[in-house]
């Protein structure tokens, strides 16, 4: 029973990391209508920005480095959109072409990270964490902070989307871009802000992934990308709330399954859930009609 509760605790931690990354990916998809296959590399790059600030150059506290590194990743995502994605999206109306560009960018970023930081496993500079009992769950202080960050970000994204002018503009644009433009919404500005938010969330999720896993490599994000896709598709592609629900389901299922079967099959659990969802409810739990 103790193993079960421990795996539930891990499940919540994995779900937290997944939720941040899946919401970042879904926000960007909702506005641009194409999946960014370089998102895993955005995560790793964001984590390395934090790593540089925390371990290599400035030796900042990990949480301050996380904020600065993630914001830097947000700015980087905006630049990538302006220099690469936007020109392609303007030129080619079919999103398929931009999809191929995201694949290409993924390879470029991955190799860029390898050339700068090498293939060695890196570690954040953090003091050893105390283990705490929260009811039946056994969690470290860092894992609790990661969960708190995820909850705070999910609540923040929800409040932003539901109550602010920016959030309503984003939802309107995700619904119908041309109508949003003719209604007076600056769709270019909203796209830029969305890339910033998506990139920042990629930076946060990449860093918290490194914190919870205890290490980071250039491939960390890419390996995790498949689980993020599973969460996004199970939740319903393009749905922010679906992404949150999908993250919770996949996070808990993969970690609880690891308590009873070989942990090497964790990814397979995610794919079994994904395949079952695609068979029974192909549009996902919280489907958004009208999106590709």
């Amino acid at each position, binding site marked *: 029973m103790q193993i079960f509760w421990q795996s539930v605790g891990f499940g919540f931690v994995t779900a937290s990391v997944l939720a941040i990354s899946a919401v970042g990916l879904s926000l960007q998809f909702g506005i641009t209508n194409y999946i960014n296959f370089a998102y895993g590399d955005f995560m790793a790059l964001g984590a390395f920005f934090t790593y540089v600030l925390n371990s290599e150059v400035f030796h900042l506290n990990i949480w301050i480095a996380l904020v600065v590194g993630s914001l830097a990743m947000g700015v980087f995502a905006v630049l990538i959109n302006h220099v690469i994605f936007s020109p392609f999206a303007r030129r080619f109306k079919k999103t398929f072409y931009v999809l191929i560009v995201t694949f290409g960018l993924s390879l470029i970023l991955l190799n860029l990270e390898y050339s700068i930081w090498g293939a060695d496993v890196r570690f954040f500079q953090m003091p050893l964490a105390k283990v705490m009992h929260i009811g039946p769950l056994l969690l470290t202080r860092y894992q609790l902070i990661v969960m708190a960050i995820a909850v705070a970000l999910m609540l923040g994204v929800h409040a932003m989307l539901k109550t602010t002018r920016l959030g*309503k503009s984003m939802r*309107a644009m995700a619904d119908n871009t041309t109508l949003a433009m*003719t209604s*007076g919404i600056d*769709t270019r500005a909203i796209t830029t802000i969305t890339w910033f938010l998506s990139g920042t969330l990629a930076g946060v999720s990449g860093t918290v992934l490194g914190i919870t896993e205890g290490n980071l490599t250039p491939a960390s994000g890419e390996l995790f990308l498949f689980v993020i896709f599973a969460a996004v598709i199970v939740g319903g592609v393009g749905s922010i709330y679906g992404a949150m629900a999908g993250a919770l389901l996949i996070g808990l299922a993969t970690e609880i399954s690891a308590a009873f079967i070989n942990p090497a099959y964790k990814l397979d659990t995610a794919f079994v859930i994904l395949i079952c969802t695609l068979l029974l409810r192909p549009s996902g739990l919280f489907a958004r009609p009208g999106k590709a």
Partner: protein
Amino acid sequence: MPALLAENVTAGYGHSPIINDITLSAELNSVTTIIGPNGAGKSTFAKTLVGILRPTSGRIVVNDVDITRMAGHLIPRHGLVYVPQNDNVFKRLTVRENLEVGGFASRANTAARMEEILDIFTDLQKAVEKKAGFLSGGQQNLLAIARALMVDPSVIMLDEPTAGLSPAYTDVVWSQIARIAKLNTAVLVVEQNVERALKHSDEVHIFVAGRNHVHGAADEIAGLDLASIFLGRSHAS
């Protein structure tokens, strides 16, 4: 000066123009309607006015401001709003949120304006928290018009606002159009139904093959051989 003036406007997709050298104006407190056969360029003209398409020549002036090269999202701030024929509401947003988004381009108090709009469109009052996608087709069209009115525009451009509606709801929409025109607004309507257009409009323009073939007061146009005009022949009475 009319509220809207389009002078010698030519526009289209790619390098092939769909509309050629079109000149048209719309006055405050009046309904101006564009009719014509399918493919005449009516919707293309509407999209050109509101910045979805760029004119290759000519100019568009709203309230003395040249909006010809203006970014599309800035045009509502200058008083010209657009209600497209299809997909004219944000389906996943509630009625209230649709109206709020419509008011983003306005500097006025959105809440107060929303009250005024809901007083005009009483059908929408009971559905303010409902997602727009769950409204009937007629209610969606009314919501689209209501959303456009949130900026208190001087010109409202409606692209086939009664397409696909029941005769009863068509009358409701046209009565609202007449009401809007009296609110110191120039209403420009693209319409397929010639009979209704002539009945409810002050001015009528007939587009044929991308050109403004004939225009005049509605009662003058009613006396013309419209079938011949639609087929591109000269307009004999």
